[in-house]
């Protein structure tokens, strides 16, 4: 069941004098939908590209489908992976239909029916020259070109940045369909936290070249809370293990943001005679707290 599709170990990457990846280790298991968050410049794109072998790490290793050879040289591996780069690599002089036909030639198992249906549903004008398409239309086409060979691992770098809410929802439903089989794996970066909150089973948060969070979305939400107790309340000894991220005073209340909250902590507060107000946090709030 728990088969690693991607495993990265101690990944370091630097560009000129800037360290972009500072020792990242993580793995993605079959069936996971991993959402990658991080501020601009946190290293998301570099992580995705290095993980797929488009860039070589300065140190550390990448293992894809149990093989440590770089993607660029392994045809078989290439067929198992679909990649949507942040900046599309469409050929501007071609019509959308011509471009898709060109890509399909590389893959014997290309699912023409699927791509035809999605092009229709997503309303992509396939008979228009690509350079005349809007940014959103190009993005949709770019996603389609990575779906046709039905890759086992789909990696997308900010796939919805230019999409309108309707198109974003259509895209999310396609991710849900992929995930429903349990056999396909998705790794995508985004700034749209509410999208990630819907479809991701797992969350990675990058900060300054490191992986700050690598957890199941449900766990992350269950253990990250905001707590309010009276300003003069004394927390029980050893309460630091609740992972105090921030502490401030607001209108006579102590407000604490905790990253390791559990029922056990709740009980300990009760035993200390405190009746805390516990506020669960949305992923957006969690992200903001992690960067406060």
């Amino acid at each position, binding site marked *: 069941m728990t088969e690693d599709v991607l495993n990265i170990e101690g990944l370091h990457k630097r560009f000129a004098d800037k360290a972009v990846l500072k020792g990242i280790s993580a793995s993605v298991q079959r069936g996971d939908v991993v959402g990658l968050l991080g501020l601009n410049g946190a290293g998301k794109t570099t992580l995705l590209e290095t993980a797929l072998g488009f860039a070589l790490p300065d140190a550390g290793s990448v293992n894809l489908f149990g093989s440590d050879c770089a993607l660029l040289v392994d045809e078989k591996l290439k067929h198992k992976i679909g990649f949507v780069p942040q900046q599309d690599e469409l050929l501007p002089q071609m019509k959308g239909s011509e471009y898709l036909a060109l890509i399909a030639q590389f893959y014997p198992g290309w699912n023409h029916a699927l791509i035809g249906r999605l092009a229709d549903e997503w309303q992509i004008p396939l008979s228009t020259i690509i350079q005349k398409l809007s940014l959103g239309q190009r993005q949709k086409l770019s996603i389609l070109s990575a779906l046709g060979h039905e890759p086992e691992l789909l990696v997308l770098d900010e796939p919805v940045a230019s999409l309108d809410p309707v198109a974003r929802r259509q895209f999310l439903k396609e991710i849900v369909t992929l995930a429903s089989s349990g056999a396909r794996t998705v790794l995508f970066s985004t700034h749209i936290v509410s999208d990630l909150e819907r479809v991701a089973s797992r969350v990675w948060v990058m900060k300054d070249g490191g992986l700050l969070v690598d957890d199941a979305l449900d766990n992350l939400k269950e253990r990250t809370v905001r707590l309010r107790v009276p300003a003069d309340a004394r927390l029980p000894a050893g309460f630091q293990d609740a992972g105090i991220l921030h502490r401030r005073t607001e209108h006579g209340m102590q407000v604490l943001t905790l990253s390791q909250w559990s029922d056990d902590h709740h009980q300990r507060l009760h035993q200390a005679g405190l*009746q805390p107000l516990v506020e*669960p946090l949305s992923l957006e709030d969690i992200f903001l707290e992690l960067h406060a």
Partner: protein
Amino acid sequence: MFTLNPQSGIPIYKQLIDQVRLLVAGGQLKAGAELPSVRELALTHAVNPMTISKAYSLLEAEGLLERQRGKPMTVAAQAHSKESKTDRLHRLQPQAEQLAHAAKQLQLSTEDVLGLVRRAMEKDHD
């Protein structure tokens, strides 16, 4: 059938578990009633199917739901008896505590709050 809010701090699987429990406890979902498939719910709400199947599995483990091969998830036969009033009231304990807490902060009297609750109940009836 369900109201799922992915942007809430409460994980989706927990929201679903709470709502199924409430619907069964309140008698709106009776023994033998069929639940939507994992895929259907996941697609309707555009949420990860794993979070739905996690909720169903946990409800199955606690005996509230039953799964038969190749058939939809159903409300278990044992779940038919409506919960006792005490148990149903107990479910509202957390919300009651929260309401009481907020009312105290706003320096409202018990009567004022009870009046508010009564009006809210009546409104929901309409």
